[in-house]
């Protein structure tokens, strides 16, 4: 742990976030105590399966949850300021200007009845009322060129359904970055794209990060994407964080049974000769969370304590933390003074 007394305030801090949705079947607890920090210019990757709460935690930051979802507990600090208390107007200011988001399916995420240019200039002029239409168009065109779309001037006048999937995602990225936000959240940005286009988009995002210097949070279920892009990785299951660390930590020294299970179930150079082992059981029912660890019912190595108590988060390494009772049993954690 660094002992800088003058610690720089992190760009974004999510502290003990709890988010749930009210449904007619009960309260769905999508996020149950998630905390992470994002430093300026860095990339954070959040990986988990569907229903793990990874997207919801990102939406909670931007406060664009569906109508029946709300943050029940916790704080989100942007440059030290608590944005969970922002008014609607302040939030509208925050979105797009300080923090932007791109989504999974660019076809449905762009409004079909307006041109691409219209939607980009809207992003510009929402946050800067003094910009004229002409200037906005010019800026939009520059942005399109920056994201690698040629004939940008022509493209501005086209409708979303006239562009290919990869191009649409580039448009989304251009739209998100046009106001030069300090954070870009990417929710499954490549899932809906072909594999070859995936690589292009990821390359583009890393390139832009170097050029514009924004921090990126990338949310995905694809371990390969995460490995490429992230400085730090967070693994989520059942609305909680299982493990966090660098790509090396996670891939070469997994310390949570869920992470281990994930790595066993995907093809990689290390298990080329072996059979892939899927994780048994079905995803957790968020209406009825178990008392203990979220993963216990599906875990091969589950112990009695796992069923009863939520495992604490323990430090494995300088950069590596995990919440698993196995580490307690095997004394794999670092004992240290709390603070």
């Amino acid at each position: 742990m660094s002992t800088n007394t003058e610690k720089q305030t992190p760009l974004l801090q999510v502290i003990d976030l709890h988010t749930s949705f009210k449904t007619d079947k009960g309260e769905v607890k999508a996020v149950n105590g998630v905390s992470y920090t994002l430093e300026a210019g860095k990339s954070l990757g959040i990986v988990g399966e569907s229903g793990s709460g990874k997207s919801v935690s990102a939406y909670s930051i931007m406060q664009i949850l569906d109508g029946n979802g709300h943050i029940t507990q916790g704080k989100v600090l942007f440059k030290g300021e608590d944005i969970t208390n922002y008014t609607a107007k302040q939030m509208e200011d925050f979105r797009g200007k300080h923090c932007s988001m791109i989504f999974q399916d660019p076809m449905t995420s762009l409004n079909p009845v307006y041109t691409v240019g219209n939607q980009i200039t809207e992003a510009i002029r929402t946050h800067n009322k003094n910009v004229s239409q002409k200037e906005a168009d010019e800026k939009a065109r520059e942005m399109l060129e920056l994201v690698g779309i040629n004939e940008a001037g022509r493209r501005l006048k086209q409708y979303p359904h006239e562009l290919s999937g990869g191009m649409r995602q580039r448009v989304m990225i251009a739209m998100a970055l046009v106001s030069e936000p300090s954070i870009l959240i990417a929710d499954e940005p490549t899932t809906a794209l072909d594999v070859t286009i995936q690589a292009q988009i990821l390359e583009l995002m890393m390139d832009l990060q170097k050029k514009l210097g924004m921090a990126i949070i990338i949310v995905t279920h694809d371990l390969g994407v995460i490995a490429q892009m992230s400085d730090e990785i967070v693994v989520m299951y059942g609305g909680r964080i299982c493990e966090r660390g660098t790509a090396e930590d996670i891939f070469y020294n997994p310390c949570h049974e869920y992470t281990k299970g994930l790595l066993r179930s995907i093809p990689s150079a290390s298990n080329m000769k072996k059979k892939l082992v899927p994780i048994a059981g079905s995803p957790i029912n968020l209406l009825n969370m178990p008392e203990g660890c979220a993963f216990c019912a599906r875990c091969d190595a589950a112990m009695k304590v796992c069923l009863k108590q939520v495992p604490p988060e323990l430090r494995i390494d300088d950069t590596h933390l995990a919440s698993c009772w196995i580490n307690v049993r095997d004394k794999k954690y670092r004992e240290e003074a709390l603070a």
Partner: protein
Amino acid sequence: MEETKVNPLSLQIDPALFEPATDEEKRQADVMSESTTFFKDGMRKLMKNPLAVGSIIVLLLVVLTITIAPLVVPYTYSDIIRVNGKRDRGNKNLSAFEYSEKEQEFIDQGGKVFPHIMGTDSLGRDYFIRVVYGARISLTVGLFASILVLIIGVIYGSIAGYAGGRADLIMMRIVDIIYSLPDMLIIILLATVLQPILENTSNPLINALGTNMICIFIVFGLLYWVGMARLVRGQILTIKNNDYVLAARSIGAKPAHIIRKHIIPNCISVIIITTALQIPSAIFTESFLSFIGMGVNAPMPSLGSLANSAREGLQTYPMQLVYPAVLIVLIVLAFNLLGDGLRDAFDPKLRSK
């Protein structure tokens, strides 16, 4: 990172807890929501809907009343009321629970006169029983017309949907043409035309119902089934192309089995919902026609014709319009709400939310 770090040793955890958990214990931790059938789930949702439940209650009450009332009330809908066997000239247009002079005398002498719950009409007939019979007619017409639409529509739609190809194309073109014809005009036209033709037959059924009712049924049978046919065909097409049907076929399931297990259950909800919403539409049409004088023949009442006759005396006896009008609105409203409730509960397309 600030947070939840805890010194595990301080928790004083019993080492025995670090024994592996048994499968049984794990199963208990994995609580899944109980699975129900589609039908049970839908019924549960329906019963939770207060408007739908209210509608069911109202409809049951109405049906109950119109079944029991003729047994209780001693008047019939065409009887001009007599007091003690004698004509009573003063019994026209009485208000609710009012007695005419002659009836009053009769009661004073010790006779019993069943109260006129809704008064009498301009010819001295008990209005309550007329309204009850009117409701009967309206509901019966609505029900039978809807069943007719159901049968024709489902058969036509299923054949078109299942057959596919050329047959489907032709059948749907016919549907398109019929769909674009203005129904109301054709009903009126047909009714105008058929009346002089059928007037002179001796067929008892035709005489009882009246030519106009026959027209309504004919036109419903000819025109109104197209909406149902389209829906049924659409459902069948969707299901036919669904992956699970493909899967069933690939493991060798016979067509009859596929129809029974996959296609019919998915269609039933659509069919029921459409029928439930068709009934008020039929009642509407019937009362509209009765109102413009093309409904049932006098003296048989229907809610629409009662409303029409009440128009003349509207200023002096407004209640004669209110009773049948309120009943129409109530019945149609109840069916509409029930249909909406059924749709919310059972429509597969809406259930994703």
